[in-house]
């Protein structure tokens, strides 16, 4: 058992560390050829067609900042995806691999992970970055397990030390920030959407597109797909957020806040406490296990400001309205208003003339 490195697929082997059949050989840390960054260019389709997920340019920009080595991307879809090539090149992708398989024009997590794993074997990147969308956070750990490498989820900061990636993420409900490294190539990380700002696209940039066929070993049995959940309001693209926390004792304040938001062109978000109370769906939650938001103005009404909540706020200006002058939210506030949050919302609503 001690001499074996567990990389053969002998079914009769008694080594519990052996790889399941069909798995790739392990990568060696000293492998000189591990170079460059691979990004999954996740696409979304809506009534206007197919687009690159808005978080993808964010991680491309960051990858360019971290390293001058080659930037790869993998994209799935039909010929309808071809118009997106230039956009990806303009953001900085050098080589784009387009997986051509009819079945994979629909999202199949294990198949996507297998395709990425198969590509990794070909291009041997040092790093794989995937956006922390729901799909991304499913494909990434599948891929990491297939590659038997380390994955750090939901990073809020990335730095590099040569080819080594240094990843920072919140833990313990967001109460601490942990800095993490990986001891193998490829190093993998998922990045919280909205964490980084994309670079300005340069339309003259060119890249190479390679068509790559791939046949997965398994596909999902999809019975039904329904798009656009009704409750789902995207708080990540609001300019102004009216955010409610546990200091809001009266549920009727929510209605006041929604009316006010409509008048102001804002959206209503909340802290974890109000999601747990059932007052808001999870999609409205700002924070480490909710959403990263980067509005121009973040109004925190009755939010105490746990670290896991603060971790999700990347606003230009934060105003904290709270009757507790010692609440931790004030640490990140540009303006602190010590007062009764519910009353102030009501007054804002009645004062609004436009």
């Amino acid at each position, binding site marked *: 058992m001690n001499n074996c490195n567990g990389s053969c697929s002998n079914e009769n082997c008694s080594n519990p560390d052996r790889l399941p059949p069909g798995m790739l050989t392990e990568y060696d840390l000293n492998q000189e050829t591990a170079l460059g960054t691979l990004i999954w260019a996740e696409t979304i389709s809506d009534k206007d067609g197919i687009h690159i997920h808005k978080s993808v340019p964010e991680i491309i920009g960051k990858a360019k900042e971290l390293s001058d080595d080659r930037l790869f991307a993998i994209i799935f879809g039909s010929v309808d995806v071809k118009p997106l090539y230039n956009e990806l090149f303009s953001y900085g992708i050098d080589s784009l691999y387009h997986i051509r398989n009819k079945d994979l024009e629909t999202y199949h997590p294990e198949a996507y992970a297998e395709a990425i794993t198969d590509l990794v074997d070909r291009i041997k990147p040092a790093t794989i970055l995937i956006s922390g969308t729901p799909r991304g956070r499913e494909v990434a750990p599948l891929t990491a397990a297939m590659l038997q490498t380390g994955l750090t*989820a939901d990073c809020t900061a990335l730095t590099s030390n040569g080819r080594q990636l240094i990843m920072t993420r919140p833990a313990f*409900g967001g109460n601490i*920030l942990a800095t993490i490294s990986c001891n193998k190539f490829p190093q993998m990380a998922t990045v919280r959407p909205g964490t980084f700002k994309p670079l300005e696209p340069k339309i003259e940039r060119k890249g190479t597109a390679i068509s790559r066929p791939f046949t997965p070993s398994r596909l999902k049995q999809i019975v039904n797909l329904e798009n656009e959940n009704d409750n789902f309001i995207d708080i990540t693209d609001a300019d102004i957020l009216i955010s409610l926390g546990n200091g809001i004792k009266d549920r009727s304040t929510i209605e006041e806040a929604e009316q006010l938001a409509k008048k102001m062109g804002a959206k209503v978000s909340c802290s974890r406490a109000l999601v747990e109370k059932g007052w808001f769906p999870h999609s409205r939650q700002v924070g480490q296990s909710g959403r990263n938001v980067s509005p121009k103005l973040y109004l925190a009404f009755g939010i105490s400001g746990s670290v896991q909540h603060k971790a999700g706020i990347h606003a230009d200006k934060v105003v904290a309205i709270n009757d507790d002058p010692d609440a931790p939210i004030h640490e990140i506030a*540009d303006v602190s208003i010590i007062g009764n949050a519910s009353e102030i919302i009501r*007054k804002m609503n009645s004062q609004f003339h436009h």
Partner: protein
Amino acid sequence: MKILVMIKQVPDVSLIEIDENGILQRNGVPAILDPFSLFALKMAVNIKKKIGGMITAITMGPLQAKEALVTCLEYGADNAFLLNDKDFAGSDTWATAKVLSTFVKNEMEFDLIFCGMQAIDGDTAQVPAELSVLLNAELASYVNNFKMDGNKLLVSQNYDRETRWIEIKSPAVISVSGGTPLNEGLPSIEDYINARKKSIQTRNRIDLGLGAFSAGINGSHTKVISSMSPILSKKRNIVDGNDPNAAAKYILSLAEELK
């Protein structure tokens, strides 16, 4: 139907505070069964009610994690296992998945494995997927509902913008993101008493036949280099909000400035 539920005992993170030195105050914070693990267990119990079977709760953790296993027995698990060894400490998600899958491969047969989508202390949401690869099982993530269609088991997956119903077959790992409402009701006195009659067995690293470099810090591919509390200092403007009218006016003027 043989059902396994992977659970985790976590500190109640809503009660964790940071003292003035930036040190995490973990002492005295009570430990609870992770709420996502409970969603997973409840879904397993509901499936068992429909198609029958046995539910085994499993956790990798310190000895105190036994309390969480007792809670699982109260909520309807039939028996439980605690995978406990000092060598398991410091495991990242890969090492955790290794330990869990090794135990399962050694001793358990299963049709379905339920896991909470993530745990409220780590929030990594990786173990279910890694487990599915190690056990060569299908993965269903973000599951918040299920139904039977004849003999077929269908689960609903919530991908935020989209909901999917897929058919899953044994062997499968189901990562549960929600589901049963919190106000459903609690285990009964009978459940409380019976839970204390059911068995909780323990296994250590040697029992699992794992090498010292297969688990814990040594079996992990990711390592925490450092940690700190993100205390930020900002130059801030304090406004007296005792007069709500004046405060409201002020905030609205800030919003106007943006235009």
